[in-house]
């Protein structure tokens, strides 16, 4: 029987996990590099093949115009929504984008669900390699604060990847499930989930009943465009401004911008562990951007971003009618909770030390695996009761929104509304469905529009009841019945942002051309590309050493490098991807001292004759 898995489809990394029946606990599945973290990066090769994960991440540096990261930010959004993000993110949006964004990658154009489907398909392959068995069904996690369009886009991505999506589960809820299972805890729990691109806060009550444990979400809030990405972008705009001060504009060098981003992310990670770090970044004009950053300065830069998480935290507590001190446990989830300032801020607010025993990168995927097993009938003494994050409403006279399902209602939730005609011989009633907390339709998120068709007659004669139902995945279903005729009333709902069924069908057909290549064959191609690039870089460094700094390298080092190069060439002639990768790693290590020395020489040359204050 095909396997069922849990997937965390993240902004920066994605993971796939399963419930290990023998050990009775969830486990993450490692990919070909040994880590379960799959970078959520997709690249399209010139020959049309799709590259995902670590290999795609490297291509961000070499082929930025064919490669995309953080695509989750585009899910379920329209072109007008992302105008601000385009200033910072190198997304190449196709001008023909209307209600769905279309992204250009090399010669081809894709929608965000298609790009996400490539990531899901990669993870599916990891799992199939691991199980030596097929994977059919999945629970996929989404940020709790995702709206209907963002959820539908995620479900479409699942479908396009060839998975049957059993359920979408909110990320903080999944984390609570993994955490509660691990710690055997009861009581009021707040999950603070600060990831790569999204922020969620959920307040839960963990209760033991005679039937089993219930995980009931009391309230949730968040910001679907707030995450570690924003910290990276803040660092990047400061660095680029300072580099501009050195007389270099990076706008014409997309590859250098990606290198800089990588260097800044490394500095960010370091500042989570040490009090000071130094950036030495070579510039395209031969100069160097040299910058010392202290923890204090870094925290002044990012404090506004961290503070933005606290508004949703206060709202979630107010909605649950709880004071911070009433929360018994605080759980940290997401890579951005490694930032010390984030931990301090959360600890200060709740007046207690937050939990971070479980790996904050893995806990969401682990929870998804548990929920997948619950749905398959494996675990039967746990039950999740989740809520809808946003109020559902319909537009009424004067553009005002009438709320029909309030936010934080336990899902599935429903509301029935009766509609009738206002004038004689009216043949249609227009309905506009929205999500959000504001009073006016223009300030809420438009979900869909549809028209109820009625036969001509006197005003007020038609009586059509429309049922709005938010299912357990947080996705809206609409149905209508004609109360006078006593029949079902068919409606066609046109999503405001997103793909309709016909488009998904067409994409499914098209996606056959990306039919899954054999896993090891694809790994071999990637490993060869990687090994060839290491060979190439080493050859270049050796040539440079000969030309500029002959004698810099000891005879012993040279022999080690040349030996490793020969081994890589030999492995390249074979077909074992593990062999190719292993020797490429050896070569990489052997040539690193040389690369560093060449880098320091360049740095020394650039610094020469300049006072420290000038650099």
């Amino acid at each position, binding site marked *: 029987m095909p396997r069922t898995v849990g997937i965390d489809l993240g902004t920066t990394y994605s993971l796939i996990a399963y419930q290990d029946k023998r050990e009775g606990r969830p486990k993450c599945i490692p990919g070909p590099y040994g880590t379960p973290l799959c970078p959520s990066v997709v690249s399209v090769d010139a020959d049309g093949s799709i590259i995902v994960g670590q290999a795609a991440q490297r291509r961000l540096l070499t082929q930025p115009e064919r490669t995309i990261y953080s695509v989750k930010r585009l899910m379920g959004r329209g072109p007008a929504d992302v105008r601000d993000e385009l200033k910072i993110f190198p997304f190449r949006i196709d001008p023909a984008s209307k209600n769905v964004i279309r992204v250009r990658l090399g010669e081809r154009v894709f929608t965000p669900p298609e790009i996400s489907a490539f990531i899901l398909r990669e993870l599916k392959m990891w799992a199939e390699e691991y199980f030596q068995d097929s994977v059919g069904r999945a629970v996929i996690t989404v940020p709790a604060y995702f709206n209907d369009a963002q959820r539908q886009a995620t479900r479409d991505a699942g479908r396009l990847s060839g998975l049957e999506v059993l359920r979408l589960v909110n990320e903080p809820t999944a984390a609570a499930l993994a955490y509660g299972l691990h710690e055997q805890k009861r009581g009021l729990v707040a999950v603070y989930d600060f990831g790569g691109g999204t922020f969620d806060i959920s307040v839960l009550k963990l209760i033991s*009943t005679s*039937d089993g444990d219930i995980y009931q979400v009391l309230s949730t809030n968040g910001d679907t465009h707030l995450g570690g990405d924003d910290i990276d972008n803040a660092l990047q705009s400061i660095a680029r401004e300072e580099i501009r001060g050195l007389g270099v504009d990076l706008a014409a060098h997309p590859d250098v911008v990606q290198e800089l981003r990588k260097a800044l992310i490394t500095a960010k990670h370091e500042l989570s562990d040490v009090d000071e770090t130094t950036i030495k970044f070579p510039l395209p004009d031969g100069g160097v951007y040299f910058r010392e950053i202290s923890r204090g300065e870094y925290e002044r830069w990012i404090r506004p971003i961290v503070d933005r998480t606290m508004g949703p935290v206060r709202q979630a507590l107010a909605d649950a009618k709880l004071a911070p001190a009433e929360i018994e446990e605080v759980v940290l989830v997401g890579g951005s909770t490694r930032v010390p300032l984030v931990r301090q801020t959360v600890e200060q607010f709740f007046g207690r030390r937050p939990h971070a025993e479980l790996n904050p990168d893995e806990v969401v995927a682990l929870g998804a695996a548990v929920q997948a097993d619950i749905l398959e*009938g494996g675990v039967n003494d746990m039950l999740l009761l989740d809520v809808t994050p946003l109020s559902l409403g319909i537009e009424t006279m004067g553009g005002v929104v009438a709320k029909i399902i309030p936010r934080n209602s*336990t899902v599935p939730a429903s509301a029935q*509304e009766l509609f009738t005609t206002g004038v004689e011989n009216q043949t249609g009633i227009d309905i506009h469905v929205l999500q959000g907390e504001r009073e006016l339709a223009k300030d809420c998120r438009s979900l869909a529009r549809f028209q109820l068709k009625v036969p001509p007659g006197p005003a007020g004669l038609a009586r059509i009841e429309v049922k709005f139902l938010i299912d357990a995945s947080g996705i809206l279903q609409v149905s209508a019945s004609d109360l006078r005729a006593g029949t079902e009333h068919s409606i066609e709902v046109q999503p405001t942002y997103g793909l309709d069924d016909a488009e998904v069908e067409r994409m499914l057909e098209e996606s056959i051309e990306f039919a899954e290549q054999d896993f090891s064959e694809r790994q071999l191609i990637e490993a060869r590309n990687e090994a060839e690039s290491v060979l190439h870089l080493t050859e270049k460094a050796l040539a440079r050493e000969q030309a500029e700094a002959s004698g810099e390298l000891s005879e012993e080092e040279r022999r080690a490098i040349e030996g490793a190069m020969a081994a890589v060439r030999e492995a390249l002639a074979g077909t074992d991807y593990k062999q190719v990768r292993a020797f490429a790693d050896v070569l990489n290590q052997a040539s690193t001292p040389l690369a560093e020395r060449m880098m320091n020489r360049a740095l020394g040359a650039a610094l020469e004759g300049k006072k420290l204050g000038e650099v």
Partner: protein
Amino acid sequence: MPQKLVVDLAALEQRFHSLSWKLHPDRFARASEDERQLSLDLTSQLNDAYRTLRDPVARVEYLLSLSGMRKEGQKKQQAPPELLEEVFELNESLDELRETRATGGSAAQMTGLRAKLESAQHKFESALAGVDQELAGVSAEWDAALDASADESARNKLMERMNEVLNRRSYIRNLVNGVRQELAET
């Protein structure tokens, strides 16, 4: 179930949980299409009912809608006379605030206006608490009337009073929300 308005919340929650175990879609993920649809429909009804019954205001609104006295989406608002003076003052402060904002007033001016708004917020919040208490009082009277098998006209009178309290409440609640929003934007 008797249509009583004072509810034991712990017992209600327990009942909600035990029905959730029986009905929830998670328990029927592998069942037939028909069973899954039934589970979805019944669970949404259960959740809708719990949402209404656990909230004292929604509970009264639901009772009144059953008798047709209060239709969904046609909620009336009624200004309580004793608050009129304060509402008048509030509107003046709000006009002043918008003008100061538009013309870029001094920090001292803004602080003064903020203080006025905060005091208004305080007043309206305590008025809201008062109305909620009043509603709890009528709700208890309603339960007592049911226990005493009161006749229809006595029950209708109580429902009319509840309706009147709800109308006042929704007016005050809008005031509270309005001031809150202005303060958040200031």
